[in-house]
């Protein structure tokens, strides 16, 4: 991992990787969305609204996965002082916040015709809302201490402490038996019919690739901005 901590080496890999992730993500997402909207049969109980779950689940997965990545990057920033770890964490935060928000929004739109309510203070919904606020807090904190460079400790510590919310979100449907359903996909199998399952895999992998592309683009932007700042400082000192 330390090999890739060099920004020049990282950029050499990140530039083609961004293009590949964008291309793969767009193709897989398009197949998944088309399958979920036009090919998949309606659910016998939920009817057409079951189609919303094919974007809601990837949004939840990326919102939670994003913070897991942010926490790992924060740990690397604290323990190994990786030059790229802080950049990665700061790049993940807005992408994760967008998907956490999209998870809440699509869940709310699905909940109205299915549960009869836009919002319920259910364990899963509330812990997901907390995750969105954690992302907002992290972004504010990281922006405030960015000037301090790799020595800033508040944002990575916040990233690590905030990770406690991830298992809370995951187990919320077991700990608090309220409106939100339990997991339909587990390591041991799934209760979803194959005709409804395949578009979900396409949207899961497709939007994950697009998430990765967005993170790489934001990392490249921050590295370029750092380069500009360093050059301007050198020019001013000369």
């Amino acid at each position, binding site marked *: 991992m330390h090999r890739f901590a060099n920004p020049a080496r990282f950029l050499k890999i990140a530039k083609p990787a961004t293009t590949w992730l964008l291309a793969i993500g767009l193709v897989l997402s398009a197949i998944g969305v088309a399958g979920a909207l036009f090919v998949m049969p309606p659910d016998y109980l939920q009817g057409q609204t079951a189609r919303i779950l094919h974007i809601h689940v990837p949004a939840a997965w990326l919102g939670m996965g994003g913070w897991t990545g942010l926490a790992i990057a924060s740990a690397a920033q604290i323990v190994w002082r990786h030059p790229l770890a802080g950049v990665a964490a700061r790049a993940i935060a807005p992408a994760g916040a967008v998907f956490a928000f999209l998870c809440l929004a699509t869940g709310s739109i699905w909940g109205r*015709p299915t549960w009869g309510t836009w919002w319920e203070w259910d364990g899963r919904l509330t812990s997901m809302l907390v995750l969105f606020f954690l992302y907002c807090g992290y972004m504010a904190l990281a922006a405030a201490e960015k000037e301090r460079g790799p020595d800033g400790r508040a944002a990575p510590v916040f990233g690590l402490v905030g990770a406690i919310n991830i298992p809370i979100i995951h187990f919320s449907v077991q700990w608090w038996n309220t409106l939100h359903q339990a997991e339909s996909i587990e390591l041991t199998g799934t209760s979803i019919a194959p005709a409804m399952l395949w578009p979900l895999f396409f949207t899961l992998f497709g939007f994950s690739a697009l998430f990765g592309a967005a993170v790489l683009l934001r990392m490249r932007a921050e590295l370029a901005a750092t380069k500009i700042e360093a050059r301007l400082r050198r020019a001013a000192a000369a």
Partner: protein
Amino acid sequence: MNQWAFVIAAYAVFLGGTGGLLAWSLLACRKAEDQAERIGRRP
């Protein structure tokens, strides 16, 4: 209650949000890299 209206609204919000995130990231990256290249070319 027309269920398709909810489906279309959810997909519009999701695809709009994802597209917006990608466009924002792409523009920020292009702008910063172009500027870095311009400054790097200066004597």
